[in-house]
């Protein structure tokens, strides 16, 4: 790792209108290294990367490639130089197929015409490298977020790349997929590719990075060799204060706490088969599984967001009919989606309408009380630490983590008794994560029952009183107390334990 940097940012600054978000940041990437970039939500990581990859021009400062100053007038020229960015937010055309997205802008042609078999093969190869079994002919809008993320990665690595910038690639991936991704990254760096890796999962950063740069409030705090920084050091550099324990001590409900929700034999055609579980008052119930285990689909089926073919719900022992989200909301159940851009937030609208959309009936019967909304927004900004330069900003201009906080705030507007959160800390920095864990913990202590779906094993383990493990659309086991360990969860999630001879295709009967 002695060679010259391929890509250098020289005191880059960036302003959006009157708001400055980057202040003279220096950054460079050396071939064959993994350079991690960490920082709080809204620190400017994504913005810096977009500038490096040509998506946005810097307001000041310069970019150099191989020592030569360049003016990247778009992502095209950057890609031509081998600089490829995997976006934090999905950057796929929904109506197009996986293959079409992977090939977009780089189609293989034979003569005038597209060479579809060649492109399909290329797509399949790229996906296979990621152990991802998505059909190249599937349309993006039919994929789950984790699958989309894999497609996004496949799209990036199938280009000829010298610098690969990954903006929170693992936010929606489970440990297994992350392993696969890391193998891929190591292979790429061995070939001399420089990798920039942005993540809020500091264990990952420790595991993969050679150097770590910390960004705070648009300024570079420092760049250090990874081996010199411990987990806590990074956290402290990021948030500017020492970090205490991430997870509060668990306080499980009494064993005889009433069952507030009982799900019996719920099936979602094509996704989930015969799932049953119970949720107690004040309990945090974790859901673990690999990508594609069907956890999201189970919850969406429960909420009336997907068609159910079988299954009964009981709320406080009474049969409950949930055909729409509104029914669920009436029963005090709220769901936070994993797909914040596609299903969670209106990116073209402001914070206020987004915050109150789910609970608008609480803001006036006929006319909306905008003052009350504004107050609620102020409170949410405060409570969830949403970093926004102006309350009139459009949601699309918020940093990813801050969008996630807003989404959480939105879900909490209905003050649910049962809260289902799907990847709740996706893209959230470690400082805020701690706040959110504390928040969930306190909520449960005050009697709210919480279901947490998460791909982050520590999160599941650190938060849950009990853990339900799913695999291929079926519940394979439920763990509690001391049994909640990574090894045990993985055993159930991969089919080594739980059900005998899991059929590979159990749920596709519609």
């Amino acid at each position: 790792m002695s060679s010259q940097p391929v890509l250098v940012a020289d005191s880059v600054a960036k302003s959006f209108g009157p708001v400055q978000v980057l202040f003279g940041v220096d950054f460079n990437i050396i071939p064959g290294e993994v350079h991690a970039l960490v920082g709080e939500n809204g620190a400017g990581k994504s913005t810096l990367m977009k500038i490096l990859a040509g998506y946005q021009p810097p307001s000041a400062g310069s970019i150099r490639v191989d020592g030569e100053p360049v003016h990247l007038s778009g992502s095209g020229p950057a890609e031509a130089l081998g600089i490829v960015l995997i976006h934090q937010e999905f950057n796929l055309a929904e109506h197009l197929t996986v293959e079409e997205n992977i090939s977009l802008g780089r189609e293989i042609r034979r003569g005038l015409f597209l060479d579809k078999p060649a492109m399909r093969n290329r797509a399949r190869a790229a996906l296979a490298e990621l152990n991802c079994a998505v059909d190249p002919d599937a349309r993006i809008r039919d994929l789950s977020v984790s699958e989309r993320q894999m497609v996004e990665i496949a799209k990036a690595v199938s280009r000829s790349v010298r610098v690969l910038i990954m903006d929170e690639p693992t936010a929606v991936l489970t440990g297994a997929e992350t392993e696969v991704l890391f193998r891929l990254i190591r292979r790429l760096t061995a070939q001399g590719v420089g990798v920039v890796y942005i993540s809020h999962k500091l264990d990952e950063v420790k595991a993969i990075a050679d150097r770590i740069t910390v960004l705070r409030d648009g300024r570079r705090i420092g760049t250090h060799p990874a081996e010199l920084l411990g987990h806590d050091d990074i956290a402290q550099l990021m948030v500017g204060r020492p970090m205490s324990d991430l997870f509060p001590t668990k306080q499980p409900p009494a064993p005889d706490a009433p069952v507030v929700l009982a799900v019996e034999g719920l099936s979602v055609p094509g996704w989930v088969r015969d799932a049953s579980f119970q949720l107690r008052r004040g309990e945090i119930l974790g859901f673990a599984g690999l990508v594609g285990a069907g956890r999201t689909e189970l919850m969406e089926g429960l909420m009336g967001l997907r068609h159910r073919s079988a299954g009964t719900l009981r709320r406080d022992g009474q049969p409950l009919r949930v055909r729409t989200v509104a029914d669920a909301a009436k029963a005090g159940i709220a769901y936070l989606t994993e797909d914040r851009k596609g299903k969670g937030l209106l990116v073209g609208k402001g914070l206020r309408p987004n915050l109150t959309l789910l609970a608008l009936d609480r803001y006036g019967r006929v006319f909306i009380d905008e003052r009350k909304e504004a107050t609620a927004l102020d409170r949410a900004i405060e409570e969830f630490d949403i970093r926004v330069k102006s309350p009139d900003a459009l949601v699309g201009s918020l940093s990813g983590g801050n969008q996630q906080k807003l989404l959480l705030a939105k879900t909490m507007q209905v003050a649910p008794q049962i809260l289902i959160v799907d990847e709740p800390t996706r893209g959230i920095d470690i400082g805020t994560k701690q706040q959110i864990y504390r928040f969930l913990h306190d909520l449960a202590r005050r009697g709210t029952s919480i279901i947490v779906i998460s791909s982050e094993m520590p999160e599941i383990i650190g938060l849950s009183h009990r853990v339900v493990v799913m695999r291929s659309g079926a519940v394979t086991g439920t763990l509690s107390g001391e049994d909640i360990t990574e090894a045990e969860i993985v055993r159930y999630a991969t089919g080594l334990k739980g059900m005998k001879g899991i059929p590979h295709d159990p749920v596709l009967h519609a």
Partner: protein
Amino acid sequence: MTQSSMPELARKPSAGFDLKLWGPFLALAGLIVLGTLVNPVFLSPANLANVLTRTAFTGIIAVGATFVITTGGIDLSVGSLAAFTAGVMIVVMNALVGPMGAGMGAGWPVVLVGMLAAVGLGLVAGLVNGLLVTKGRIEAFIVTLGTMGIFRSLVTYLADGGTLSLNSGMRAVYRPVYYGGLFGIPTPVLVFAAVALIGAVILYRTRFGRYCAAIGSNDEVARYSAIDVDRVRLLAFVLQGLCVAIAVILYVPRLGSASATTGVLWELEAIAAVIIGGTMLKGGHGRIWGTVVGAVMLTLIDNILNLTGAISVYLNGAIQGAIIIVAVLLQRGTASKR
């Protein structure tokens, strides 16, 4: 259709002068200047009253269209529905005039029944369109293309291919609804203003209005936010039907008749008014006041062309088209240069 899904900037509505927001109003001001230059009579109160009164029909319909388009739909059937509703209204009133008499005393009840018939029909038609779109899961474009043909046909059938004319006694009673006014302001203008105001309140200040915009900008997000997407879509079509009925109630006393040619191309005019006003055809963002300005602009262009005799009559359409493009070009152009 060039707006990007990723906003470039955090836009502050209050920061300075938002040209995107004010564009339609500027374009309107430009047209008024043009009109005055062409012929000073343009600014006479009588002419302005005429122009605004005329705008009322398509303007009121366009207010309804703003809702449908904001939810991401489209309604091509409004012109035909207007004709059909006018036809039914006339038939109803003519039929009642026998038993109830057309004298000044008995006239008003008949008119009221006619109005109720119009409103009822408008609501039912909107419901049909809405149900086909939501329950039938057919594109609004196709549904309303179909009902456009159906309504048009029905009025032709009703009129036996000719014209349905309101009983002359009834006309005398009904006339003031179009030709009368309050404090010198013609009734249609007052009604138009009221409809626009109510429309603005609904769109900007009620849950329903919010939901319309939410559905138009991302119906999945709306669904996940416990919004009954189908019901809101349905209601938007019903509202559109109601607006058509109101427009017809003002229209019938003007010409006192309905035929197969009544309201032809009103749908195009209404949609054009909505889009010129800054509402996005793809949905998600509606602007009632923009729509009002758009509707007025379209009438003004006609009026200005009538004020000058300089141009070959054959080229009227070309001038109209050019003015529309230039007006929108100017507002967009200045807006993007910020």
